[in-house]
Protein backbone atom coordinates (compact mmCIF):
# COMPACT_ATOMS: atom_id res chain seq x y z
CA UNK A 1 0.00 0.00 0.00
CA UNK A 2 2.67 2.47 1.02
CA UNK A 3 4.70 1.37 -2.00
CA UNK A 4 1.72 2.20 -4.18
CA UNK A 5 1.48 5.69 -2.72
CA UNK A 6 5.20 6.22 -3.16
CA UNK A 7 4.83 5.10 -6.79
CA UNK A 8 2.09 7.65 -7.36
CA UNK A 9 3.94 10.61 -5.97
CA UNK A 10 7.22 9.76 -7.65
CA UNK A 11 7.89 12.48 -10.23
CA UNK A 12 7.92 11.38 -13.84
CA UNK A 13 11.43 10.73 -15.05
CA UNK A 14 11.48 10.68 -18.85
CA UNK A 15 13.49 8.19 -20.84
CA UNK A 16 15.22 9.78 -23.82
CA UNK A 17 17.08 7.77 -26.43
CA UNK A 18 19.88 9.76 -28.03
CA UNK A 19 21.46 8.86 -31.36
CA UNK A 20 24.93 10.33 -31.66
CA UNK A 21 27.58 10.50 -34.36
CA UNK A 22 30.95 8.88 -33.71
CA UNK A 23 32.85 11.90 -35.03
CA UNK A 24 31.19 14.75 -33.21
CA UNK A 25 28.25 14.48 -30.83
CA UNK A 26 29.39 11.24 -29.19
CA UNK A 27 32.72 12.91 -28.47
CA UNK A 28 30.88 16.03 -27.37
CA UNK A 29 29.02 13.96 -24.78
CA UNK A 30 32.30 12.40 -23.78
CA UNK A 31 34.04 15.75 -23.42
CA UNK A 32 31.11 17.07 -21.39
CA UNK A 33 31.66 14.17 -19.03
CA UNK A 34 35.42 14.74 -18.85
CA UNK A 35 34.88 18.42 -18.15
CA UNK A 36 32.45 17.38 -15.39
CA UNK A 37 29.64 19.36 -16.97
CA UNK A 38 26.46 18.15 -15.31
CA UNK A 39 23.49 17.23 -17.46
CA UNK A 40 20.29 15.29 -16.91
CA UNK A 41 20.97 11.55 -16.64
CA UNK A 42 17.82 10.66 -18.62
CA UNK A 43 19.48 10.16 -21.99
CA UNK A 44 20.59 6.72 -23.16
CA UNK A 45 23.15 7.43 -25.86
CA UNK A 46 23.58 5.18 -28.87
CA UNK A 47 26.61 5.71 -31.05
CA UNK A 48 26.27 5.58 -34.84
CA UNK A 49 29.08 6.11 -37.30
CA UNK A 50 27.20 9.09 -38.73
CA UNK A 51 23.87 10.81 -38.16
CA UNK A 52 23.22 9.84 -41.80
CA UNK A 53 22.95 6.24 -40.60
CA UNK A 54 20.02 7.32 -38.50
CA UNK A 55 16.65 6.25 -39.87
CA UNK A 56 13.08 7.31 -38.93
CA UNK A 57 12.43 3.70 -37.96
CA UNK A 58 14.83 4.09 -35.02
CA UNK A 59 12.58 6.75 -33.52
CA UNK A 60 9.38 4.77 -34.04
CA UNK A 61 10.97 1.71 -32.48
CA UNK A 62 12.20 3.72 -29.49
CA UNK A 63 8.69 5.09 -28.93
CA UNK A 64 7.05 1.71 -29.41
CA UNK A 65 9.37 0.28 -26.76
CA UNK A 66 8.74 2.93 -24.18
CA UNK A 67 10.94 5.98 -24.84
CA UNK A 68 9.38 9.34 -24.05
CA UNK A 69 11.62 11.30 -26.39
CA UNK A 70 14.34 10.82 -28.98
CA UNK A 71 17.35 13.05 -29.59
CA UNK A 72 19.28 12.89 -32.85
CA UNK A 73 22.60 14.64 -33.01
CA UNK A 74 25.34 15.01 -35.56
CA UNK A 75 27.96 17.27 -37.04
CA UNK A 76 27.00 20.75 -38.16
CA UNK A 77 25.88 21.01 -41.79
CA UNK A 78 29.00 21.32 -43.89
CA UNK A 79 31.13 19.42 -41.34
CA UNK A 80 30.07 15.83 -42.00
CA UNK A 81 32.90 13.33 -41.81
CA UNK A 82 31.32 11.60 -44.79
CA UNK A 83 30.84 14.86 -46.72
CA UNK A 84 27.08 15.38 -46.74
CA UNK A 85 25.25 12.54 -45.04
CA UNK A 86 23.92 14.91 -42.40
CA UNK A 87 21.89 16.68 -45.10
CA UNK A 88 20.08 13.38 -45.55
CA UNK A 89 19.49 13.45 -41.82
CA UNK A 90 17.83 16.87 -42.14
CA UNK A 91 15.50 15.62 -44.89
CA UNK A 92 14.50 12.47 -43.05
CA UNK A 93 14.10 14.38 -39.84
CA UNK A 94 11.77 16.97 -41.39
CA UNK A 95 9.69 14.25 -43.00
CA UNK A 96 9.49 12.28 -39.77
CA UNK A 97 8.41 15.37 -37.83
CA UNK A 98 5.58 16.00 -40.30
CA UNK A 99 4.43 12.42 -40.05
CA UNK A 100 4.62 12.29 -36.27
CA UNK A 101 2.50 15.44 -36.10
CA UNK A 102 -0.32 13.61 -37.87
CA UNK A 103 0.17 10.70 -35.50
CA UNK A 104 -0.47 13.07 -32.62
CA UNK A 105 3.04 12.90 -31.15
CA UNK A 106 4.05 16.24 -29.69
CA UNK A 107 6.75 18.25 -31.39
CA UNK A 108 9.06 18.36 -28.36
CA UNK A 109 9.54 14.60 -28.24
CA UNK A 110 11.95 14.49 -31.18
CA UNK A 111 14.82 16.86 -31.55
CA UNK A 112 17.76 17.28 -33.92
CA UNK A 113 20.83 18.95 -32.42
CA UNK A 114 24.12 19.77 -34.11
CA UNK A 115 27.14 19.49 -31.84
CA UNK A 116 30.79 19.33 -32.83
CA UNK A 117 33.26 17.34 -30.74
CA UNK A 118 34.22 20.57 -28.99
CA UNK A 119 30.65 21.49 -28.06
CA UNK A 120 30.10 19.33 -25.01
CA UNK A 121 28.61 22.24 -23.09
CA UNK A 122 26.14 23.00 -25.85
CA UNK A 123 25.04 19.37 -26.09
CA UNK A 124 24.64 19.17 -22.31
CA UNK A 125 22.48 22.27 -22.36
CA UNK A 126 20.32 20.94 -25.19
CA UNK A 127 19.85 17.66 -23.34
CA UNK A 128 18.75 19.53 -20.20
CA UNK A 129 16.28 21.57 -22.25
CA UNK A 130 14.86 18.52 -23.90
CA UNK A 131 14.50 16.56 -20.68
CA UNK A 132 12.63 19.49 -19.13
CA UNK A 133 10.38 19.78 -22.15
CA UNK A 134 9.55 16.07 -22.27
CA UNK A 135 9.03 16.03 -18.51
CA UNK A 136 6.44 18.76 -18.98
CA UNK A 137 4.74 16.76 -21.75
CA UNK A 138 4.45 13.71 -19.54
CA UNK A 139 4.98 10.02 -20.30
CA UNK A 140 4.30 8.74 -23.80
CA UNK A 141 3.61 5.24 -22.58
CA UNK A 142 3.21 3.86 -26.08
CA UNK A 143 3.62 0.15 -25.45
CA UNK A 144 0.76 0.16 -22.97
CA UNK A 145 -1.32 2.20 -25.35
CA UNK A 146 -2.22 -0.37 -27.99
CA UNK A 147 -5.73 -1.14 -26.81
CA UNK A 148 -7.36 -4.46 -27.50
Amino acid sequence: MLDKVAEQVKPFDPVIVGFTCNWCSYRAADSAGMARIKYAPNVRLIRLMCSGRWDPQFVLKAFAEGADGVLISGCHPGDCHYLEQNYKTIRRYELLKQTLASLGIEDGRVKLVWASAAEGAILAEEIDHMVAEVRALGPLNWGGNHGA
Partner: protein
Amino acid sequence: MAHNGESKPKFAMYWAASCGGCEIAVLNTHELILEVDANFDVVFWPVAMDAKYHDVEAMDDGSITLCLFNGAIRNDENEEMAHLLRRKSQLLVAFGSCASEGCIPGLANLYSKQTMLDTAFSTITTDNPGAVRPIIAYDMPEGRIEILRTLDQVVKVDYSMPGCPPESHQIAAVVRLVIDALHGNAALPPRGAVIGAGDSTVCDECRRTRSEKTITEFRRMATFQPDPVQCLLEQGILCSGMATRSGCDARCPSANMPCIGCYGPAAGVVDQGARMMSAVASVIGGNDPKEIRAIMRGIADPAGTFYRFSLPSSLLRHAKV
Protein backbone atom coordinates in the same frame (compact mmCIF):
# COMPACT_ATOMS: atom_id res chain seq x y z
CA MET B 1 -0.96 -32.98 -45.14
CA ALA B 2 -1.92 -35.94 -47.39
CA HIS B 3 -5.55 -37.02 -47.32
CA ASN B 4 -7.15 -40.37 -47.88
CA GLY B 5 -9.05 -39.48 -51.04
CA GLU B 6 -12.44 -40.47 -49.66
CA SER B 7 -13.63 -37.16 -48.29
CA LYS B 8 -12.28 -34.05 -49.91
CA PRO B 9 -10.28 -31.54 -47.90
CA LYS B 10 -12.38 -28.66 -46.65
CA PHE B 11 -12.14 -25.04 -47.75
CA ALA B 12 -13.42 -21.92 -46.01
CA MET B 13 -13.25 -18.23 -46.75
CA TYR B 14 -14.36 -15.52 -44.35
CA TRP B 15 -14.58 -11.75 -44.35
CA ALA B 16 -14.14 -9.70 -41.21
CA ALA B 17 -13.67 -5.90 -41.46
CA SER B 18 -13.22 -5.77 -45.22
CA CYS B 19 -14.75 -4.41 -48.40
CA GLY B 20 -15.48 -7.62 -50.30
CA GLY B 21 -12.77 -7.00 -52.88
CA CYS B 22 -10.79 -10.06 -51.78
CA GLU B 23 -13.78 -12.28 -52.52
CA ILE B 24 -14.06 -10.74 -55.98
CA ALA B 25 -10.35 -11.36 -56.53
CA VAL B 26 -10.89 -15.05 -55.75
CA LEU B 27 -13.80 -15.22 -58.18
CA ASN B 28 -11.54 -13.46 -60.71
CA THR B 29 -9.40 -16.58 -60.87
CA HIS B 30 -12.08 -17.77 -63.34
CA GLU B 31 -11.87 -21.48 -64.11
CA LEU B 32 -9.59 -22.09 -61.13
CA ILE B 33 -12.75 -21.88 -59.05
CA LEU B 34 -13.73 -25.20 -60.67
CA GLU B 35 -10.46 -26.68 -59.44
CA VAL B 36 -11.21 -25.43 -55.95
CA ASP B 37 -14.57 -27.15 -56.22
CA ALA B 38 -13.00 -30.33 -57.62
CA ASN B 39 -10.39 -30.52 -54.88
CA PHE B 40 -12.20 -29.13 -51.85
CA ASP B 41 -15.51 -29.25 -50.10
CA VAL B 42 -16.45 -25.63 -49.59
CA VAL B 43 -17.83 -25.75 -46.06
CA PHE B 44 -18.05 -22.07 -45.17
CA TRP B 45 -17.96 -19.01 -47.40
CA PRO B 46 -20.60 -16.44 -46.47
CA VAL B 47 -20.36 -14.52 -49.74
CA ALA B 48 -20.95 -17.61 -51.85
CA MET B 49 -23.09 -19.99 -49.82
CA ASP B 50 -25.46 -20.10 -46.91
CA ALA B 51 -23.88 -21.31 -43.71
CA LYS B 52 -24.27 -20.13 -40.16
CA TYR B 53 -21.66 -19.52 -37.51
CA HIS B 54 -23.10 -22.39 -35.47
CA ASP B 55 -22.40 -24.69 -38.41
CA VAL B 56 -18.73 -23.78 -38.06
CA GLU B 57 -18.89 -24.26 -34.29
CA ALA B 58 -20.22 -27.77 -34.87
CA MET B 59 -17.24 -28.76 -37.04
CA ASP B 60 -14.38 -30.75 -35.55
CA ASP B 61 -11.34 -28.71 -34.55
CA GLY B 62 -8.76 -28.70 -37.33
CA SER B 63 -11.25 -30.09 -39.82
CA ILE B 64 -10.98 -27.20 -42.30
CA THR B 65 -7.85 -27.73 -44.39
CA LEU B 66 -7.52 -24.24 -45.85
CA CYS B 67 -9.16 -21.06 -44.58
CA LEU B 68 -8.62 -17.78 -46.38
CA PHE B 69 -9.42 -15.11 -43.82
CA ASN B 70 -9.76 -11.62 -45.23
CA GLY B 71 -10.58 -8.44 -43.39
CA ALA B 72 -9.14 -6.88 -40.27
CA ILE B 73 -10.27 -7.25 -36.66
CA ARG B 74 -12.47 -4.28 -35.89
CA ASN B 75 -15.00 -5.60 -33.36
CA ASP B 76 -15.93 -8.51 -31.10
CA GLU B 77 -17.61 -10.43 -33.90
CA ASN B 78 -14.45 -10.27 -36.04
CA GLU B 79 -12.38 -11.36 -33.07
CA GLU B 80 -14.64 -14.26 -32.19
CA MET B 81 -14.59 -15.51 -35.78
CA ALA B 82 -10.81 -15.22 -35.86
CA HIS B 83 -10.55 -17.50 -32.82
CA LEU B 84 -13.20 -19.88 -34.10
CA LEU B 85 -11.67 -20.28 -37.55
CA ARG B 86 -8.20 -20.59 -36.06
CA ARG B 87 -9.44 -23.50 -34.01
CA LYS B 88 -11.19 -25.19 -36.90
CA SER B 89 -8.46 -24.71 -39.54
CA GLN B 90 -5.20 -26.43 -40.29
CA LEU B 91 -3.95 -23.64 -42.55
CA LEU B 92 -5.17 -20.19 -41.63
CA VAL B 93 -4.11 -17.61 -44.19
CA ALA B 94 -4.27 -13.88 -43.47
CA PHE B 95 -5.60 -13.11 -46.91
CA GLY B 96 -5.15 -9.65 -48.38
CA SER B 97 -3.99 -6.37 -46.96
CA CYS B 98 -6.70 -5.88 -44.28
CA ALA B 99 -5.98 -9.18 -42.56
CA SER B 100 -2.22 -8.83 -43.06
CA GLU B 101 -1.53 -5.15 -42.41
CA GLY B 102 -4.81 -3.43 -41.58
CA CYS B 103 -5.17 -1.67 -44.94
CA ILE B 104 -7.51 1.29 -45.55
CA PRO B 105 -9.87 0.48 -42.65
CA GLY B 106 -6.78 0.69 -40.44
CA LEU B 107 -6.42 4.39 -41.20
CA ALA B 108 -9.21 4.85 -38.68
CA ASN B 109 -6.41 4.26 -36.16
CA LEU B 110 -5.36 7.85 -36.88
CA TYR B 111 -8.47 9.10 -35.10
CA SER B 112 -10.38 8.73 -31.88
CA LYS B 113 -13.57 6.74 -31.79
CA GLN B 114 -15.52 9.98 -31.43
CA THR B 115 -13.90 11.66 -34.44
CA MET B 116 -14.45 8.55 -36.51
CA LEU B 117 -18.15 8.43 -35.67
CA ASP B 118 -18.51 12.18 -36.23
CA THR B 119 -16.93 11.81 -39.66
CA ALA B 120 -19.10 8.85 -40.61
CA PHE B 121 -22.41 10.22 -39.34
CA SER B 122 -22.35 13.98 -38.94
CA THR B 123 -20.37 15.85 -41.56
CA ILE B 124 -21.91 18.36 -43.95
CA THR B 125 -21.98 15.80 -46.74
CA THR B 126 -23.80 13.16 -44.67
CA ASP B 127 -27.54 12.87 -45.18
CA ASN B 128 -28.55 12.03 -41.63
CA PRO B 129 -31.33 14.43 -40.56
CA GLY B 130 -32.25 12.44 -37.46
CA ALA B 131 -28.59 12.47 -36.35
CA VAL B 132 -28.80 8.70 -36.00
CA ARG B 133 -25.78 7.11 -34.36
CA PRO B 134 -24.89 3.48 -33.73
CA ILE B 135 -25.50 2.64 -30.10
CA ILE B 136 -22.25 1.60 -28.54
CA ALA B 137 -23.12 2.46 -24.98
CA TYR B 138 -23.53 -1.15 -23.95
CA ASP B 139 -21.89 -4.38 -24.87
CA MET B 140 -23.74 -5.67 -27.91
CA PRO B 141 -22.60 -8.81 -29.68
CA GLU B 142 -21.40 -6.57 -32.54
CA GLY B 143 -19.12 -5.21 -29.97
CA ARG B 144 -16.90 -2.37 -29.09
CA ILE B 145 -15.27 -0.13 -31.66
CA GLU B 146 -11.64 -0.16 -30.69
CA ILE B 147 -8.31 0.05 -32.40
CA LEU B 148 -8.28 -1.98 -35.55
CA ARG B 149 -5.95 -4.96 -35.46
CA THR B 150 -4.51 -7.35 -38.00
CA LEU B 151 -5.38 -11.03 -37.90
CA ASP B 152 -1.99 -12.06 -36.56
CA GLN B 153 -2.32 -9.59 -33.68
CA VAL B 154 -5.29 -11.69 -32.55
CA VAL B 155 -4.49 -15.30 -33.47
CA LYS B 156 -1.50 -17.18 -34.83
CA VAL B 157 -1.63 -17.31 -38.61
CA ASP B 158 0.11 -19.87 -40.79
CA TYR B 159 0.66 -17.64 -43.81
CA SER B 160 0.06 -14.08 -44.91
CA MET B 161 -0.87 -13.14 -48.40
CA PRO B 162 -0.62 -9.43 -49.16
CA GLY B 163 -2.40 -7.30 -51.74
CA CYS B 164 -5.45 -5.09 -51.93
CA PRO B 165 -6.73 -7.34 -53.23
CA PRO B 166 -4.21 -10.10 -53.91
CA GLU B 167 -3.60 -10.48 -57.63
CA SER B 168 -5.64 -13.27 -59.14
CA HIS B 169 -2.63 -15.03 -60.67
CA GLN B 170 -1.04 -15.09 -57.21
CA ILE B 171 -4.20 -16.53 -55.67
CA ALA B 172 -4.26 -19.18 -58.39
CA ALA B 173 -0.63 -20.07 -57.70
CA VAL B 174 -1.25 -20.38 -53.96
CA VAL B 175 -4.37 -22.52 -54.36
CA ARG B 176 -2.53 -24.78 -56.85
CA LEU B 177 0.38 -25.09 -54.41
CA VAL B 178 -1.93 -26.18 -51.60
CA ILE B 179 -3.65 -28.68 -53.92
CA ASP B 180 -0.26 -30.05 -55.03
CA ALA B 181 0.88 -30.30 -51.42
CA LEU B 182 -2.30 -32.21 -50.56
CA HIS B 183 -1.43 -34.70 -53.28
CA GLY B 184 2.10 -34.96 -51.97
CA ASN B 185 3.56 -33.29 -55.06
CA ALA B 186 4.86 -30.11 -53.44
CA ALA B 187 6.06 -28.86 -50.09
CA LEU B 188 4.38 -25.98 -48.32
CA PRO B 189 6.57 -23.01 -47.42
CA PRO B 190 7.66 -22.70 -43.77
CA ARG B 191 4.90 -21.57 -41.42
CA GLY B 192 4.74 -17.85 -40.93
CA ALA B 193 5.88 -17.11 -44.49
CA VAL B 194 4.45 -14.49 -46.78
CA ILE B 195 2.97 -16.34 -49.72
CA GLY B 196 1.63 -15.23 -53.08
CA ALA B 197 4.14 -12.40 -53.42
CA GLY B 198 7.77 -11.72 -54.25
CA ASP B 199 10.79 -11.08 -52.07
CA SER B 200 11.92 -7.76 -53.47
CA THR B 201 10.24 -4.39 -54.04
CA VAL B 202 7.78 -2.99 -56.55
CA CYS B 203 10.63 -0.77 -57.80
CA ASP B 204 12.55 -3.93 -58.71
CA GLU B 205 9.72 -5.05 -60.95
CA CYS B 206 8.97 -1.59 -62.30
CA ARG B 207 10.05 -0.94 -65.87
CA ARG B 208 10.47 2.80 -65.47
CA THR B 209 13.96 4.33 -65.56
CA ARG B 210 15.58 5.81 -62.50
CA SER B 211 18.38 8.32 -62.75
CA GLU B 212 19.01 9.42 -59.15
CA LYS B 213 17.38 12.70 -59.89
CA THR B 214 16.20 14.94 -57.07
CA ILE B 215 13.06 17.02 -57.09
CA THR B 216 12.11 20.53 -56.07
CA GLU B 217 8.37 19.99 -55.68
CA PHE B 218 5.80 17.25 -55.21
CA ARG B 219 3.11 17.10 -57.83
CA ARG B 220 -0.22 15.38 -58.12
CA MET B 221 -1.31 13.23 -61.02
CA ALA B 222 -4.24 15.46 -61.85
CA THR B 223 -2.09 18.52 -62.48
CA PHE B 224 0.25 17.37 -65.25
CA GLN B 225 0.95 14.62 -67.75
CA PRO B 226 3.73 12.45 -66.34
CA ASP B 227 6.45 11.15 -68.59
CA PRO B 228 5.64 7.50 -69.43
CA VAL B 229 9.21 6.24 -69.08
CA GLN B 230 10.81 8.07 -66.17
CA CYS B 231 10.39 6.95 -62.54
CA LEU B 232 7.29 8.63 -61.08
CA LEU B 233 8.95 9.48 -57.78
CA GLU B 234 11.67 11.31 -59.66
CA GLN B 235 8.92 13.32 -61.35
CA GLY B 236 7.68 14.43 -57.94
CA ILE B 237 4.84 11.94 -57.61
CA LEU B 238 4.68 10.09 -54.31
CA CYS B 239 5.23 6.49 -55.33
CA SER B 240 5.57 3.77 -52.68
CA GLY B 241 7.45 1.29 -54.84
CA MET B 242 10.66 1.38 -52.78
CA ALA B 243 8.96 0.36 -49.54
CA THR B 244 6.47 -2.11 -50.99
CA ARG B 245 6.73 -5.85 -51.57
CA SER B 246 6.87 -7.10 -55.11
CA GLY B 247 4.34 -9.55 -56.49
CA CYS B 248 1.89 -7.46 -58.50
CA ASP B 249 4.27 -7.05 -61.45
CA ALA B 250 4.35 -3.28 -60.77
CA ARG B 251 0.80 -2.90 -61.98
CA CYS B 252 0.22 0.71 -61.05
CA PRO B 253 3.40 2.36 -62.38
CA SER B 254 2.89 0.32 -65.56
CA ALA B 255 -0.50 1.99 -65.88
CA ASN B 256 0.93 5.47 -65.28
CA MET B 257 -0.21 5.55 -61.67
CA PRO B 258 2.04 5.59 -58.61
CA CYS B 259 2.26 2.54 -56.38
CA ILE B 260 0.24 3.28 -53.28
CA GLY B 261 1.74 0.41 -51.29
CA CYS B 262 -0.97 -2.25 -51.28
CA TYR B 263 1.42 -5.21 -51.15
CA GLY B 264 2.59 -4.12 -47.72
CA PRO B 265 6.15 -3.72 -46.44
CA ALA B 266 8.87 -5.23 -48.62
CA ALA B 267 10.70 -8.29 -47.26
CA GLY B 268 12.95 -7.25 -44.38
CA VAL B 269 11.11 -3.95 -43.87
CA VAL B 270 9.57 -3.67 -40.42
CA ASP B 271 7.74 -0.41 -40.90
CA GLN B 272 6.56 0.48 -44.40
CA GLY B 273 5.96 4.12 -43.49
CA ALA B 274 9.45 4.61 -42.05
CA ARG B 275 10.95 3.08 -45.18
CA MET B 276 8.81 5.43 -47.25
CA MET B 277 10.05 8.43 -45.28
CA SER B 278 13.65 7.44 -46.04
CA ALA B 279 12.87 6.77 -49.69
CA VAL B 280 11.02 10.04 -50.19
CA ALA B 281 13.68 12.01 -48.29
CA SER B 282 16.26 10.63 -50.72
CA VAL B 283 14.69 12.34 -53.74
CA ILE B 284 14.18 15.72 -52.12
CA GLY B 285 16.72 18.23 -53.35
CA GLY B 286 18.12 21.12 -51.36
CA ASN B 287 20.10 21.32 -48.15
CA ASP B 288 18.43 24.20 -46.41
CA PRO B 289 15.84 23.14 -43.80
CA LYS B 290 13.50 25.94 -44.89
CA GLU B 291 13.70 24.87 -48.52
CA ILE B 292 13.21 21.22 -47.53
CA ARG B 293 10.18 22.10 -45.44
CA ALA B 294 8.69 24.06 -48.32
CA ILE B 295 9.05 21.05 -50.63
CA MET B 296 7.53 18.77 -48.00
CA ARG B 297 4.47 20.93 -47.67
CA GLY B 298 3.52 19.41 -51.02
CA ILE B 299 2.80 16.14 -49.20
CA ALA B 300 -0.80 16.67 -48.23
CA ASP B 301 -1.19 13.79 -45.78
CA PRO B 302 2.10 12.19 -44.76
CA ALA B 303 0.77 9.61 -42.28
CA GLY B 304 -2.11 8.63 -44.55
CA THR B 305 0.21 8.37 -47.54
CA PHE B 306 3.13 6.51 -46.01
CA TYR B 307 0.95 4.20 -43.93
CA ARG B 308 -1.95 3.93 -46.33
CA PHE B 309 -2.07 0.14 -46.06
CA SER B 310 -0.07 -0.71 -42.98
CA LEU B 311 -0.80 1.57 -40.04
CA PRO B 312 -2.13 -1.17 -37.70
CA SER B 313 0.90 -3.39 -38.40
CA SER B 314 3.41 -0.53 -38.11
CA LEU B 315 5.62 0.04 -35.08
CA LEU B 316 3.23 2.61 -33.62
CA ARG B 317 -0.01 0.98 -34.88
CA HIS B 318 -2.21 4.04 -34.27
CA ALA B 319 -2.10 7.74 -33.55
CA LYS B 320 -2.07 9.29 -30.11
CA VAL B 321 -5.61 10.54 -29.74
